[in-house]
C-alpha cells in the first residue's frame, strides 16, 4: 500500500471540520436555552478528557488504529466485538450526518425536494472523495475550512451588529436549574466526542509526536466556534432558542444588508461544504476500519457498498425532526458511551496490562 501521510495541521483541521460542520447547523448547546454558552464550556471539559484519552491510546499504539489495538488489548473475540462497536459507531455517525445534511438542505436551500435526492448527491460526492484517500480529503479540507470559518465569523459579526441582538439575553444564568444545562453539556460533549475519529488517523500523522496537541487544539477550536455561535444565537433569540431546530441558520436568516441581499443562501452553501467533507471523511474511516476488521489489505472496494448502506441508513434512521428532538438525548448517551467510556476502558486496560507497541514502530 502506498504511504499515506498527513501533517498535524491537516489532522487538526480535519477534526475541526468533522466536529463543527454539523454542530454549527444543529447547535447542540441550544437545548440549554440561555445557558448554551455554559453548556459549551462544560462540553469542552468533557471533550478535552476524550481528546486526552484518545491521544494517550494513540501514543501507546502509534502504528495501529483503534480497530487494531482494541484487538491487541482485549484478545481476539472480545476485541473483535468491541471494535465492531466502534465500526457501527462510525457508520451510525456517517448516517446521522447524512440525515442532518438532508434535513437541513431540504428545509433551507431546496424546500420541497425529497431528502433522498439530496442524500444521493451527498453520498455520491462523498464516495468520489473517499476513493482518493485520506491525503486528498485532508488537502481539500485545508482549502475549504478557512472559507467555512470565515463565513461563520462574518455571519456572527453581522448578526451581532443587528439592532435587536443583545448579549444581555444571556442573563439570568441557570434560569431553569441545572437540568437543561446538563442536557446541553451532554449534547455538546457528544459532538466533541467525534474527536474519536482521530484514533483512526493517528497512524498517518507525521510527525506523530504532535498527536496530543492535534486532539486538544481541535477540540478547543471547535468549542470556541460553538461558543461564539451559541452566544450569537442566545443574543438573538434569548430563551426561545431551544425550540429552533437550526438556531444559527434562523439567526442568519434575519440578516438583511441594505434590504436587498440575503446572505443566508451563500453562507449555508458554504456550510454544506463542511458536511460534504465530513461524510467523505467518515466514509473513508469506516471503509478503512472495516478493512482492518476483516484484515484486508485494500479498502477502496468497500467504499461503494458502505456508501449504499450509509445512504439507506440515513433514510430510515429517523422519521422526522420531531423524533430526533425527542430522542436526541438517548442518541447522545449512545455516542458518549462509545467515544468516552469505551476509550477510557481501553486506556485503563492498556495501563494495567502494560501493553504497548510504541517501542518497535516509532518512525
Amino acid at each position, binding site marked *: 500500500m502506498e504511504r499515506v501521510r498527513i*501533517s498535524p*495541521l*491537516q489532522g487538526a483541521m480535519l477534526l475541526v471540520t468533522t466536529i463543527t460542520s454539523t454542530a454549527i447547523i444543529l447547535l447542540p448547546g441550544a437545548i440549554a436555552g440561555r445557558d448554551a454558552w455554559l453548556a459549551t464550556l462544560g462540553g469542552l471539559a468533557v471533550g478535552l478528557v476524550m481528546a486526552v484519552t484518545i491521544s494517550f491510546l494513540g501514543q501507546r499504539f502509534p502504528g495501529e488504529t483503534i480497530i487494531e489495538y482494541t484487538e491487541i488489548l482485549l484478545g481476539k473475540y472480545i476485541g473483535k466485538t468491541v471494535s465492531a462497536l466502534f465500526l457501527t459507531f462510525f457508520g451510525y455517525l456517517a448516517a446521522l450526518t447524512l440525515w442532518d445534511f438532508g434535513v437541513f*438542505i431540504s428545509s433551507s*436551500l*431546496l424546500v420541497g*425536494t425529497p431528502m433522498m*435526492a*439530496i442524500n444521493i*448527491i*451527498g453520498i*455520491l*460526492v462523498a464516495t*468520489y*472523495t473517499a476513493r*482518493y484517500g485520506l491525503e*486528498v480529503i*485532508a*488537502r*481539500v479540507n*485545508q*482549502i*475549504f475550512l478557512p472559507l467555512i470559518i470565515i463565513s461563520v465569523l462574518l455571519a456572527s459579526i453581522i448578526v451581532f451588529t443587528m439592532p435587536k441582538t443583545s448579549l444581555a439575553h444571556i442573563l439570568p444564568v441557570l434560569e431553569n436549574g441545572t437540568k437543561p444545562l446538563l442536557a446541553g453539556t451532554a449534547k455538546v460533549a457528544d459532538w466533541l466526542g467525534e474527536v474519536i475519529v482521530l484514533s483512526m488517523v493517528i497512524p498517518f500523522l507525521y510527525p506523530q509526536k504532535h498527536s496530543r496537541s492535534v486532539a486538544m487544539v481541535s477540540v478547543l477550536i471547535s468549542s470556541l466556534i460553538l461558543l461564539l455561535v451559541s452566544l450569537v444565537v442566545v443574543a438573538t433569540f434569548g430563551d426561545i432558542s431551544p425550540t429552533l431546530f437550526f438556531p444559527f441558520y434562523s439567526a442568519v436568516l434575519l440578516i438583511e444588508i441594505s434590504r*436587498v*441581499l*440575503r446572505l443566508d*443562501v*451563500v453562507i449555508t*452553501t458554504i456550510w*454544506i*461544504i463542511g458536511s*460534504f*467533507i465530513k461524510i467523505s471523511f467518515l466514509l473513508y474511516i469506516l471503509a478503512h476500519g472495516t478493512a482492518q476488521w476483516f484484515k484486508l489489505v485494500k479498502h477502496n472496494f468497500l467504499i461503494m457498498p458502505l456508501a449504499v448502506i450509509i445512504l439507506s441508513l440515513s433514510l430510515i434512521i429517523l422519521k422526522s425532526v420531531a423524533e430526533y428532538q425527542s430522542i436526541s438525548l438517548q442518541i447522545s448517551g449512545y455516542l458518549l458511551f462509545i467515544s468516552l467510556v469505551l476509550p477510557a476502558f481501553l486506556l485503563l486496560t492498556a495501563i494495567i496490562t502494560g501493553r504497548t507497541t510504541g517501542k518497535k514502530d516509532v518512525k
Partner: protein
Amino acid sequence: MAFFSRRRKKPGRTSSVDARPNSRESSRDNKERTTQSLLLSPALEENLSHLKKIFTDCSDVVFREFLFAQREQIKLALVYIDGLTNKSQVSDQIMRALSLEVPAATDNTAITKANALHYVKMRGLCVHQVKETEKLQEAVDAILSGDSILLVDGHATAVINGSRGWEARSIEESQIQGVVRGPRESFVETLRTNTSLLRRKVKNKDLKIESLTLGEVTRTDIAVAYLKGIVNEGLVTEVKQRLARIKIDGILESGYIEELIRDNPMSMFPTVGYTDRPDRVAANLLEGRVAIFVDGTPMVLTVPHFFVEAIQTPEDYYEQSIFTTFVRLLRIGSLIIALTLPSLYVSIISFHQEMLPTPLLLSIAAQREAVPFPVFVEALLMEIAFEIIREAGIRLPRQVGQAISIVAALIVGQAAVQAGLVAGATIIVVALTAMASFVVYYSGSLAFRLLRFPLMFLAASFGLFGLIGGLIVIVVHMTSLRSFGVPYLAPIGPLVPGDLKDSFVRAPWWAMKKRPHLVGQNNPVREVSGMRPKPPQSTTQKGGDADAGRRQN
C-alpha cells in the same frame, strides 16, 4: 502465429522462441542492425551507389562530384539535401575552397591521394563545425538533419560539415503570451535557435541541454534542459525515463510528448506546462523545473506544472509587486467567473431568487417574460453559440473574419434579444464568462470552459446545492492530481506557507528568498537576505528638504 508464440512464451522457456524473427518488431530490429553496422568503403563509387540506393526517389538529395584542386586523381563528392543546407556556405566554403583555393594555402606537391583527407579537413574546408564518421548510418542521419557529407576517394571516412541552414521563421513577438513590459522575443520552430535563446538568458555552464531523438519515422530532435545544482536530480531522471519510454512513429508537436508523459492521462487539467517565451522557460529552470524542447514547434514544455501557474504571467515579475497582486486577484476572480457564473445565474434564477435585490429581480423577470425556454436551456444555448463563434474565430480564413464578427454580434446578440429568444441578462452573463476565461493562461482555462456545462446542469437540477457538490468534485479531482510526483494544487493544498508569496499575491523580489519548496528544495535559497532597499542614510541625517532649501538661499 506471432500471437500464439508470444502468449506461450514463459520465463524459463528456451530462447529459440525469442530468436525466431516472428514478430514485426524483431524483423525491424534486424534491418536496423544491418544498416547500423555498415561501414563506409574506401571506394568513392561504392559509397555513392550505397547512398543513392538509400536515397532512391528522394529528389531533394544532391550528389555533387568534383575534383580536388589540380589533382585529377583525387575525386570528391558532396551529398546534401537541397533546401536544408546553407547554399552559399556549401558553394563558397566547401566547393570553392576545395577545388580552387587549397593550392594557394599549401605546398602543391605535398598533396597525394593518400593524405588527401588530412588536407581536406585541415586546410581545405572553411566550415566551422566538422566531424568525421566511418559509419554509413551516421552519414545518412547527418544528411537528413541538414548537414552536408564530403566523401573523399580512397578514404573510408565521411566528413560531416555543419552547414545546416534552412528557411525558417524569424524570431517574432510571442503570440500566446503577450506582455506590455518585458522581452518581446519568442521561440521559433528550430530547436537550435530556441536553445540559443535560452542560453542567452542563462549564461552559465550549469545550464545543461541534453538531446535525444524520438519518433521512429520523423526522428525529431528533443532537448531536455535544466540547471544542474538547482534542479532535483531525481526529477531529471524521471523526465528522461518517461521520454525514453516513448516509441511512436512521429512527434510533430510538443503536445504529443505532453500526452505521453503526463501523470494523469485522462484529466482535463494540464499537468505539463508549455510556453513560447524564453524568459518564462529561464524562470522555470531557475525555480528547479525541467524544460523539454521539441524541434519543429515553438512550444516548450515545462515540468512540473502547478495550477497556480495558470494565473501567473511573465510580466508579473517585471511589473511592481503590489499592482501584480491586484491583477492576480483579478485573475482568480475571472477564473471563478469563467467556471461558475453561468451555473450561478441558472441556480439563482431558478431556485434562489431571494438573493437578488428586488429591482434587479423585477427587471430580469420582465426581460424573461417573453423568453420561451427555461433559464437553463437559454443559458446553455447561448454558451454553445458562443463556443461556436469562438471556434469559428480561430479556424475561419482571415478574409471573412469581419463578416463573421458582424453576424455573431448582430444576429446572435442583438437580434436574439430583440426577437425575445433570450434575455439580455443571459447575454451579459455569457459574454462576461467568455471574457473571463481569456484572462488566465490559455490551456489552464480549457478545463474550466468544459466544466461549465456539467455545473450548469447540476445548478439547474439542484440549485446552489448541486453547484457546490460539483465544485467539490472538481476540487477533489484537482487535489488528487500530481505533476511529476508533485501535488498539482501545491501551495494551496497541501498548504506550503512560504510559497504563498508567489500565488495569490506576488511578493517583491527582495522578499522571495526561497525557491518554490516542492520543486526547488534541492537548492532552496534564491537570494541573500536583507536586500530590501533603504533610502541612503545621509539624506535623513542632514535634514533633507530643509537643508536643500537653505543652500538655495
